[in-house]
């Protein structure tokens, strides 16, 4: 059922431009990109074990000779809801391991799934990727508050990326975007098993010969369904009623047990 819900097919009717006349007037190409997914909402149940999300897109207004040489690259990222994230490091104190130093990064995506035509380090220079925050190694990690001389910044950033990747929250697939015709591409991004609930953003970036030229974003609502999510929603949305219900359940269970076992 989950799988079925994730079968996306979106074909875009591409605006066919009359390219013939433009070529002599304007030698500069102004590439445009469009992307599409079949839905802006995904419902997943609690037994969800991860799935692929397919995004279709098209480049328009491209330079045919560059396209033929494979100079166009597409990077598609599925960014999870953003939140502040704190990295802590344990150190030995009187023989026991204690959380000592920490750093909080401002509004980072809880999950991040990246798919590209080839390894993104080969697509564009690191500085360009840092500038737009594309790629697990280049995502913007701005610390909150005073961080001193910033000498331990890279320590915490590296730890953050490593933990997110090993936890399956951050993923990359350097062959996940494929051209299915001259200008039409298909991107497959992985939704991790522990995908967070909330508004995700599908963000596609177009590069021409290592230069970032265009970006397109679409929102995607991830909604968890089922009894478990109903319980979770109740706990967060109506905490008082939820707490009272938990107590009531305990009282009834204890009371019933005393009745059932009383005779013996």
């Amino acid at each position, binding site marked *: 059922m989950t799988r079925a819900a994730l079968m996306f097919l979106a074909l875009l009717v591409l605006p066919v431009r009359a390219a013939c006349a433009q070529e002599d007037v304007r030698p500069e190409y102004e590439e445009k990109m469009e992307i599409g997914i079949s839905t802006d909402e995904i419902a997943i149940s609690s037994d969800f074990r991860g799935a692929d999300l397919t995004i279709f897109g098209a480049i328009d207004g491209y330079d045919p000779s560059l396209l033929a040489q494979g100079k166009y690259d597409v990077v598609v990222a599925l960014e999870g809801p953003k939140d502040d994230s704190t990295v802590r490091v344990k150190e030995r104190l009187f023989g026991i*391991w*204690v*959380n000592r130093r920490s750093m909080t990064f401002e509004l980072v995506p809880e999950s991040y799934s990246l798919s590209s035509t080839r390894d993104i380090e080969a697509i564009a220079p690191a500085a360009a990727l840092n500038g737009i925050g594309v790629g697990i190694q280049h995502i913007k990690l701005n610390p909150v508050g005073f961080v001193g001389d910033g000498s331990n910044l890279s320590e915490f950033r590296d730890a953050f990326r490593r933990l997110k990747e090993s936890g399956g929250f951050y993923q990359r697939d350097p062959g996940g975007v494929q051209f299915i015709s001259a200008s039409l591409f298909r991107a497959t991004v992985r939704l991790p098993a522990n995908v967070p609930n909330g508004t995700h953003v599908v963000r596609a970036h177009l590069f021409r010969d290592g230069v970032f030229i265009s970006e397109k974003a679409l929102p995607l609502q991830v909604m968890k369904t089922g009894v478990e999510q109903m319980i979770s929603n109740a706990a967060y949305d109506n905490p008082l009623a939820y707490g009272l219900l938990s107590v009531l359940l305990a009282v009834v269970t204890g009371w019933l047990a005393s009745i059932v076992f009383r005779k013996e």
Partner: protein
Amino acid sequence: MVTVYLPIAELSVNIFIILGMGAAVGFLSGMFGVGGGFLITPLLIFYNIPPVVAVATGANQVVASSISGAITHFRRGTLDVKLGTVLLFGGLAGATVGIWLFSILRSVGQLDLVISLLYVVLLGVVGSLMLWESVNALRRAAKNQQVTLRRPGQHNWVHGLPLKMRFKKSKIYLSVIPVIVLGFGIGILTSIMGVGGGFIMVPAMIYLLRIPTNVVVGTSLFQIIFVTAYTTVIQATTNYSVDIVLAFILMVAGVIGAQYGVRVGQKLRGEQLRALLGLLVLAVGLRLAVDLVVTPADVYSVVSAGIYR
């Protein structure tokens, strides 16, 4: 393997392991007349349930495991409601302060450590005392000696305190200060550790406050039920950490296990069982201590502020 997803702990667990834990701890609590919260919470932590959830859910589970005992004591009239209410005053205040501390510790990332440390100290002390007491009892039994208990009813410094109040059911005239302080301390333990606290409250009431033994258990259960119920609601509203699915599995297995525990406990010899429970409690404490000392697989950890979503 039959897995069940715990919506608040946000992980899938084997339902039989949780049922087994609940039944085993319920059995022990029935056998020894203890609440079992001080065993449930560490066991849940060993099974990778986040300590935040383990503590809040443990408090919820104690409500169920204490209620039938309290009903029985109320029927028999071995429950001093007035004394229980004074204890409860302290308990509710303690639980409020405790949850405030809990939230602060959580936000600075020291909650897991403090929970583990408190358990290591508590289980170490309780386990050692149980073992010591039961080994001494066994020795006396071997030598056929008379048990020499200090008689309750003698006065100590506690009885010189002001603000005295008459508790008719307990047939005692006692200052409310030590009662409230005791309730307060237990309330803090309930909120930070997810225990009822009977194993501390009962000895303190008997030996420190010199309250007659017949009303002690019922009165402490009265206090425990209200403080754990209050803690459950406050944990649910401030930390969103009560897992109702986990709590329900534990309480069903627990109340059934307790019934069998009571029957077995009546047939077997107390000293040897107490020695065994003492060893078990020490083992659980030791295991927690080892986890604090052993170098962790990863010294780094990451948490999202979005625990509140």
